[in-house]
């Protein structure tokens, strides 16, 4: 059985080389996440690293063992396989070890999920985001400091984001094609869609939420950096999905207020 040695060697070698390349490029962060920019993202990254460590150990261990077995137990005509049908203590302890690791992951995951999905802090700065094929529009309160109600049924050529004509707070609202927020506060986002599904994705903040017509979906996060960031759409929304790019600028409150004051209130055309 000469051929089997060649195959066994090749197989073991490939598994080890693949595992080494995989482990090195991941540990070295050769191709990695975009720079982190939020408090919640740091916790997500933390849980990611714990998961990476646990799964990485299993990944490497299984492949090394597999490579060893493939080589060590390669077929030779003078050998005979052992007759072993099962080993209950081994299987129970292996399953228990896995279960224990899962407790860590589920515990960490659900705790973090609770934090992220809890209502935003009361001092959060809120922006309403409208998604449509294939652009983002950002809705801010006007001078009165309160955002007017919007509803799809009010949408018309003159009222493109459906401001409620009977809502007094709606009259001085502002719609902008870029998202600006003041640095130093948690940011809460209310997501609205005019037409199809979209998804509001902030890679640097590790945040994402689908935008669903007929529903208000929400997310909030606490930036740890100011700067300009991109908002790709992450849910297939049609042929222009890949160009549905938004821009988020996080800037000092003074700069933000100045930007806001330069925006023209759309108000109501009545």
């Amino acid at each position, binding site marked *: 059985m000469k051929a089997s040695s060649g195959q066994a060697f090749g197989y073991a070698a490939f598994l080890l080389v693949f595992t080494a390349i995989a482990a090195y490029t991941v540990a070295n962060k050769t191709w990695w996440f975009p720079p982190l920019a939020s408090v919640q993202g740091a916790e997500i990254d933390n849980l990611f690293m714990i998961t990476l460590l646990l799964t990485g150990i299993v990944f490497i261990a299984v492949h090394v063992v597999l490579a060893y077995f493939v080589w060590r137990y390669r077929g030779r005509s003078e050998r005979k396989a052992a007759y072993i*049908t099962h080993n209950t203590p081994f299987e129970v302890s292996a399953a228990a070890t896995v279960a224990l690791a899962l407790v860590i992951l589920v515990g960490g995951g659900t705790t973090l999920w609770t934090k992220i*999905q809890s209502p935003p802090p009361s001092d959060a700065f809120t922006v309403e985001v409208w998604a449509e094929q294939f652009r983002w529009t950002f809705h801010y309160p006007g001078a009165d400091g309160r955002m007017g109600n919007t509803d799809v049924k009010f949408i018309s050529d003159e009222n493109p984001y459906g401001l409620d004509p009977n809502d007094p707070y709606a009259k001085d609202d502002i719609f902008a094609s870029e998202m600006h927020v003041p640095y130093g506060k948690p940011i809460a986002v209310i997501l609205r869609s005019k037409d199809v599904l979209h998804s509001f994705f902030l890679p640097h903040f590790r945040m994402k939420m689908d935008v669903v017509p007929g529903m208000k979906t929400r997310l909030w996060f606490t930036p740890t950096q100011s700067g300009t960031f991109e908002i790709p759409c992450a849910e297939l929304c049609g042929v222009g999905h890949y160009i549905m790019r938004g821009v988020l600028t996080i800037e000092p409150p003074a700069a933000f207020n100045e930007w806001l004051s330069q925006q023209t209130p759309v108000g109501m055309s009545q």
Partner: protein
Amino acid sequence: METPNIAHAEAAVEAHHHEPQSFWTKYVFSQDHKVIAMQYMITALVMGFIGMVMSWLFRIQLAWPDHNLPFLRFLMPTNMESGTLQTPGYYMLVTMHGTIMIFFLLTAILTGGFGNFLIPLQVGARDMAFPFLNMLSYWFYFLSCVVVTISLFVSTGAASGGWTSYPPLSALAKATPGSGLGQDLWLVSIALFIVASTMGSLNYVTTALNMRAKGMTLMRMPLTVWGIIVAAVLGLFAFPALFAGAVLLLLDRHLGTSFFLPHLVLGGEHIVRDGGSPLLWQHLFWFLGHPEVYILILPAMGITSEILSNGARKPIFGYKVMVASLVAIAFLSFIVWGHHMFVSGMNPWLGFAFVITTLIIAIPSAIKTFNWLGTLWKGNIRFTTPMLYAIGFISTFVTGGLTGLFLGNSALDIPLHDTYFVVAHFHVVMGLSSVFGIFAGIYYWFPKMTGKMMSERWGKVHFWLTFIGSYGVFWTMHYLGFMGMPRRYYSYDSYQFLPPSMHTLQMIITISALIVGAAQFIFIVNFLGSWLRGKKAPDNPWQANSLEWQAPTPPPHGNWGPKLPEVHRWPYDYSVPGASADFVPQTVPVEVEPSGEHHSAAVAVNGHGHTNGHGNGHHA
């Protein structure tokens, strides 16, 4: 016409009497499970080939957005007119690639192909319980393939809303090109496919439960049969949800109902519906969609288990636990669908339950992995092509399964959802693993199906190119996922957050995909060439124990000649201490050769088996 329900246990002579004579009843409208299996298999492979070519085209776009390949115009006259793939064409290709691969290749070949061929032969039946229904199942499948293929040629284009067909994109013709007649045909073809799958699944389960040969207890069934019938049960319970979804979506599209549509404004025009929710579709879709990935993986697990044991010349490690974990995975697969919807707008508190159920699946999956490794441990491994693929399955299943622990944990799913990390994950765990199971199975059972051996030399070349190339494609995609690269993008040029190195990765992926694709031509030539002029296969080329290898090659109509086989032992009596050969077929009585089936626990614990098994001082 043949009686649909032959009384199989006694009707050997009758079965022969009923053997179809004309070309049409023998090869076309055949009710013989082996012919139907080949029909399913070949149709599925043809569909899979189409799906693969589609992936080349969109991979070329992703690696070389500036490509100019006018010679490809013949493939897509309207969408590659200029020699460059156009955006609508790109979205049609990704949508139809997913649809074809998941339903028309993988589901069809694993249950329709392997299920049909193996269940009667491995449980010792003469045919399926309902041969006429079985034939009807294939022809409904064939019809669904025809409809989905026609949809590629309609003037408004094929469906392009993703294989998940989320409304409103898939509900309104104006929402996207392809959401016209193409989407209707997509829905009709899926509905037809579900009809076919249901008729098939009823047959597989009934046959395995009711038509086993004497002595073939449930716990003596090969794991292949277990994997396939558990998958069939999944299909019976899960597919109706998508059938209902498809009908409701057709109603929303054409009769103005509002199951999935709220009031919305599309391109400035009010579409006045009330009360519907796009999330309802997602629930219905994933209620099928998640069990569906197990419909693909469980039969592949069964095939892998079977071949690993045979190739290692060793009993499968922990048979009962293997059966139990198949059933456990199947049960859990029904209560995890919400992990596809963590950031869909579904009530986030629902996410808790789905995190827990999803991660629990890791336990039976890990047990199966340990048992496959346990099967190789102290084996005497023969590196046949089926065995190379079966070992590869362990690697891909572990690699892809582990990334599921990231995505199944809702907090980690937030940044990773809808990125290339997801694409990498499901291709490795559900695409590659089941494809590896399928290739292992084809190389392994081809001799029994056709009476010819496939070329081992070309089989190995095919394996190595496929294995290395597939990791080149799908391992690399994880990195793009880390970078936050969203999936289903025609081009990434307008984004600065993606580092320039992503172009290199995209090229590595596409080049690997083209290599893997080219390797499949080797497979096709080997498959067809061996069938036509391959070496004649002996009855039991792999020296295997299960019943199909005790039948003549290829098995005649009715499978067993005049006398049905009788089963005396489990199918994993390899290297039994004291036996004259390193395999003892299930039909050999225990008085003739010893069996480890009943006293195996003692052997395992006190280790006598090892000493007997290692005559030549190879004991470590």
